[in-house]
């Protein structure tokens, strides 16, 4: 199982998507049917947005922890001040490392936001952001 990380804009559109192969399980690269789950990942995360909208107003924290599950997958979420959501689909519960992961991603996301040429809620195409995210994922997941 690989992790699926997605940044979702305030208008529910995905800004950035990536599949993350956890460093601990690099052997799963050769998993033959991993492409079949691409749409499933999107479905799960998209459906979980309903739960996020319910949970986000009941807490002060940005990190909402694991908010939804589907079969053996968990969905963790982090809501930024601009109502941009970071969602991570994972199959192992490790709240602390995911929290750290989200916090680092938040910093990277703010750097993207500070770019005057980046329009809010538009797709993040920055390759630097991409590589940073992968690096952070390697570090924490």
């Amino acid at each position, binding site marked *: 199982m690989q992790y699926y990380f997605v940044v979702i804009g305030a208008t529910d559109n995905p800004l950035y998507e990536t599949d993350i192969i956890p460093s601990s399980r690099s052997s799963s690269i050769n998993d033959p049917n991993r492409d079949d789950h691409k749409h499933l990942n999107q*479905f799960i995360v998209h459906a979980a947005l*309903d739960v996020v909208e*319910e949970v986000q107003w009941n807490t002060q924290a940005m990190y909402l922890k694991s908010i939804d599950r589907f079969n053996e997958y968990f969905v963790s979420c982090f809501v930024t001040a601009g109502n941009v959501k970071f969602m991570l689909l994972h199959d192992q519960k490790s709240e602390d490392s995911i929290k750290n992961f989200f916090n680092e991603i938040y910093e990277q996301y703010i750097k993207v936001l500070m770019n005057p040429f980046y329009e809010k809620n538009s797709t993040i195409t920055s390759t630097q952001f991409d590589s940073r995210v992968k690096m952070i994922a390697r570090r924490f997941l």
Partner: protein
Amino acid sequence: MPWYTSFKNLIFSLRGITEHETFDHPVAMLMVISSVNPDPMGAIMQLYNPNVPSFTIDKPYVDTNILRYYVLLHDPQQTTLEHSLDVFEKMKKSFGLHCHMLTLNSRPQTTFDGTDSLSTKNNTDQTDDSIRMIWQNELERKAVIDHSLQYYTQQLSNNEQDQPISFSPSIPSLTRSSSSSSIATNPSSSSSSTTPVFTGATTQTFDLTNTPLDQEEEEENTLNSNNNLINLDGNLATSSIEYGQYLTMDHIEKTKIMVKELVTQSMIPFMERNIQHWNEQVAAGRRGLTGRLFGASRRLFGTSNSRNPSSQSIQTIPSYSRNLPAGTNTLTIYPYGAPEAQMRKLADYAFMLRDYKFAQIIYDTVRRDYATDKAYKYHAGTQEMIGICFLMMNQPLTSKVDVDRNFELAIQQYLGRCQSPYHATRATVIYYELLKSRRMWKEIPTALVRMTGEDSDLRSALFLEQAAHCFLRAPRPMIRKYGFHLIMAGHRYAKASQRNHALRCYKLASLVLEDTQWSVAKSHVQFALGRQSFHLGHLEDAVSHFVHVLPDAKQTAPQQIAHIREFLFIYQQYASKMGIDPLKDTLSNLGIPIIDDKSIRVTLSNAQPESENQDEWSVMERDLLEANIEKGYILKSKKALALQQQDDNRVICAVGEPSTVRVELYNPLQVAVTLSEVILGCQYRESIQANKESLNSDLFADQGMIDGTLMPDTTDTFDFGDFELQKLAQVSLDPLERRVVNLTIVPRKEGSITIVGLHYTFNDLVHTFRPFNKKGKRLNNTKEERMTIAYAPDRSLDILVTPPMPLLDLTFHNVPETILSGEVVQAVLEINNKGNKGLTSLRLKSNHPSFICVGHPEQMDQPIYDCDSKDENCSPIDNQIYDPSVISIPLPSEGDQQNVVQPGKTTLVPLWIRGDRIGKYTLKLLFSYQSEEENSAIAHRTLRYTLHIQVTPSLKINAFTRPCISATNEFILGIEIENLQSLTPFDLRQLTATSALWTITPLSIDLNSEQDVLDKTTIPSRQTTFAYYKIKKSETLPSSPSPSSPEAWTSNALAKLLSNNDSYDPPPPIELMVTKIPFVKFFKRLLYNNLYCI
């Protein structure tokens, strides 16, 4: 939804005696005897024989201690009332209170003559329907079940001849007999689950034991018909058999009264007594700490063998039931006498009598015993019942989680340990219905999704769909969850090959995802929709769904290949079905390849490809137009026309002049695709005015492939009457390739041609037309425009076709990319007239006029700097102020025609480029020219040309003068020259002074000594030299100012200005004296100071 309701009803209607719950165990039995029977008491005694084991259901877990209820049938046609009453009295005496006498007709009323039969017939007809309706449904269903059962048993016996078949406990119960159906209509307190009194097994017992009682009872009728049906091998025509045709409404009422009496007077008291009894005997001892301790010690230390096996707790019996999981033929049960079984029965009775709280406590108590005994089915059953009790209690729930947990465990165990999916399904449906009645929508999906395992796709699909709808009903509708569950439901429906359901689910879900950008999810849904539509034969829908799927760039290459292949296949099917030619008729909205509308350009053959900074260009065009009008090149009357044309920003093309449409195609797929028969779609109109409204390109979206005749002398150009179009036979696009396609269009008539789109055939199979929808520039003039995103109509695809015109084509030769600051390079401008008319009045406007100097064609071979003559010479120069950015380019005279370039002719004009300022420069050269003949449609044509030039730093020169002490009218000029280049040394070749007054001679350089000159004029990199020169007034000049001198002209002009005299005479030309100091024999480079005088 009807399909779910019927599924639910089916689940609830299936029942049979199971070991772990007593709801389907008999509570009471009816013993029916007719008063005609010669020995009624004896027959009942025969029925009532507890020693005969087949008397009741022969299962160790079914309690034989049930209520017996005796019914005496009285048929007034056969016996007298007195006789029946007599028998009834006897029955009462011997059997106690549980007796009832029922009056029924079973024979035609023969006492009436045929004369009166008409009235009775009417009478019976009236009652017939209502009475028959009582049986109708049940009988039909029974017939269906019987039929399938018959079929099943036949099959089974064929397969397993040796295996004995035990019917009764395992088969879903046969229909309830007439009495029970009247209970169902009866508003008595018993729920329908309390009526398994009349299970088929009971009636079968009748059949087996009461063969002498072959009487006219309704039950017997039912049974007979049952037998008949079986004998008839499942003849389903049950409607032909009429039941109870001799009954009247009166009899029905009496039957109802009997049933009411049975329930209220006998059955409920019986159950209550039993509850009380068991509660005192069994349950009380088990409750509390001591009871549990006792139970534990009994289990630990008790010697099970010494006890009566019937009361011994857990047993394993062989069973051949069909409800058992395959491979097992034993059943773990508690015999009915065991305390655990009695507890369960107690709880079930309490539940039936609606004491849910008490039932729940008992269930909970006995659950622990089942858990310790590992009687999983019993355990699951009690878990389920505890949950139901909680939900049935008429009070708010204490803990939702507990209830959910109960059901979760029950379902897990039913599924896992017991492998009894039926019970799990039933528990889920019950749970779902209870939650629904409590409007707990948010809990439902969890419960339903639990039962969506792999074992039954159809059931999972049903439950997922229900779950999806519950998300919508939640207080805060969860639309995305709804969509997701619908998609899962659709997937399962598809697996269960319920295509219509699958299509419906996917369609609903696609509405949820419609406006989002979750592309992978979206295309998955579209793909599924396409496939289901195709399988259902909705080819058109399938095609349109596949069209959505195709351009999805995020799929993997193999998927994309599969999609394309499937799409082409479906489209072919569609085309052949609809009778359209896929190569001619258009499939609209095919998203491959992607064409960026903004990148579409129409250019004439002479234009440079790039065209940025439109605004700057148009300003230049306007300025040039003004200048041309001022100078008389263009008539003033044409100004408005020219301005209008410029505003329209249309491409102006003369008849017969090819222009090129540049379209950028992008293949978003990771699969190569081929486009064939690529041709533009164009529209001709007579008017030369620009289209006011933007063209509605949808109009053309459905037009088919266009046909033209091949031009005789070409291979790819087709004639369409008003214009000729180039057709590309094939364009193949590699994965993710971006390719520019140039298509030529040649107008044949004056007017306008609008380019509306592009025709092409995708992968040689699907013809499509892609309309162009180019927007003009963003409008920001008014407030409304600023507040919305408004675009001007675009006219760049609207070609204006004019009568034949000259067409200028330019080529620059010898233009360097980088020059040094101050360096002058000669370039050659090649002017080519590609048009059909002579070209004249060529004008040039540039944005950096100081960089460019255009010479006369005769000056082509002149060196850059004149270095032949060493002496001073004078040359007159025009002394007027003019705009240096607009100049006329002199064209060579040819024969009698002045300044005309004939069609197809080429001429060369010299051009000098000087590095005037340091930096990177884009020289924008705007040429305007006119036809030698008057052309009403157009004022002038323009051509834009861009040169890029980089000027690098070379020398830095500082100069100063100071008066000469030795002589008047002489000055010392000091020149400091610094080489800014880090590598290149410079040699000074010549110093030239140009002035009206002064001449120059060197002071510090000895021109005669070659070594000295070399030393002082060579500047190594990053070095500075310094030299002195003497300047003195030219002796040739007259000492007093002449009237033609600039000073005199200025004072005259000032005097005129003061006296308001508007007359203007141009300043006289000024005589400039050029003094040269050559340093080297062969000159290459020069720096000069230019002193301007006015």
